[in-house]
């Protein structure tokens, strides 16, 4: 049997391009949290989020200084945790007299893909010093289980 492939190949300028595209696709697919998406509201306010995992739960922390608890909505659906709300400017502030405005105000929405199945009934949320901490306990079946090896 002889090798059917010749020793030289014509260089295809597009092959490098496509292989880069493939690599980028692979990178996005393998991203552990399945991505954090901005919600459909399409506003520019994106409160920063940390996503942590240990053997019992997925913990999500969001910086939301100045938010009122009643203006905040946290929902979970199909392995997506959605944090949305509206940060309101104090009614007493006359917009004509604002000297510096760096704080974000307005509506926001962040959707966090949870990498493992969680138990929605047991999710807890705390809001302390402007930091929202949502602890999503893993569903029992999603936890690693030790399998005993039978040696006969």
């Amino acid at each position: 049997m002889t090798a059917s492939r010749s020793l030289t190949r014509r260089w295809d300028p597009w092959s490098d391009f496509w292989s880069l595209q493939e690599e980028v696709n692979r990178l996005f697919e393998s991203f552990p949290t399945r991505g954090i998406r901005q919600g459909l509201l399409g506003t520019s306010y994106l409160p920063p989020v940390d996503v942590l995992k240990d053997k019992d739960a997925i913990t999500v922390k969001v910086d939301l200084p100045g938010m009122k608890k009643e203006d905040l909505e946290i929902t979970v659906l199909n392995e997506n945790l959605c944090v949305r709300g509206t940060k309101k400017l104090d009614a007493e502030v006359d917009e004509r007299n604002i000297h510096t405005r760096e704080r974000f105000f307005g509506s926001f929405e962040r959707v966090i893909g949870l990498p493992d199945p969680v138990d929605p009934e047991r999710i807890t949320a705390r809001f302390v010093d402007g930091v929202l901490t949502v602890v999503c306990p893993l569903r029992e079946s999603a936890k690693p289980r030790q399998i005993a090896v039978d040696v006969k």
Partner: protein
Amino acid sequence: MSNVQKRQETAPAPADAYQAEPERWLSPRALIYAKTDEVVLELEMPGVQRDKIEVTVERDELTVTGWRQVEDYENYQVLHQERAPFHYKRAFVLSENVRADRISASYDNGVLRLTIPRAEDSKPRRIEIQ
């Protein structure tokens, strides 16, 4: 002794868990606006506990330092991190139109709110039309 000086002397020292002089500070986002009698300065410092805030005034410079609660991520697998784990510090130069010696401060939900009264002659005055 003015109230501000008193506050400086009784301000709590940062706990040992915090570095004496961090290599990097985060500048808290500010909202500054004027009211008839006072100027209000709001600074966002999420993750800072009330007793870890220092507000000092030296001559015309106001400095705010907030020591962020140190979160230990060692026992976790960090899947995604956007929150900057730094302490906050920012300085402002106050104009002579405000009474720097009469600053009052309150803190709620990660926002420090400083209220500085305006000096008498800098307040807007209505002029009556005869």
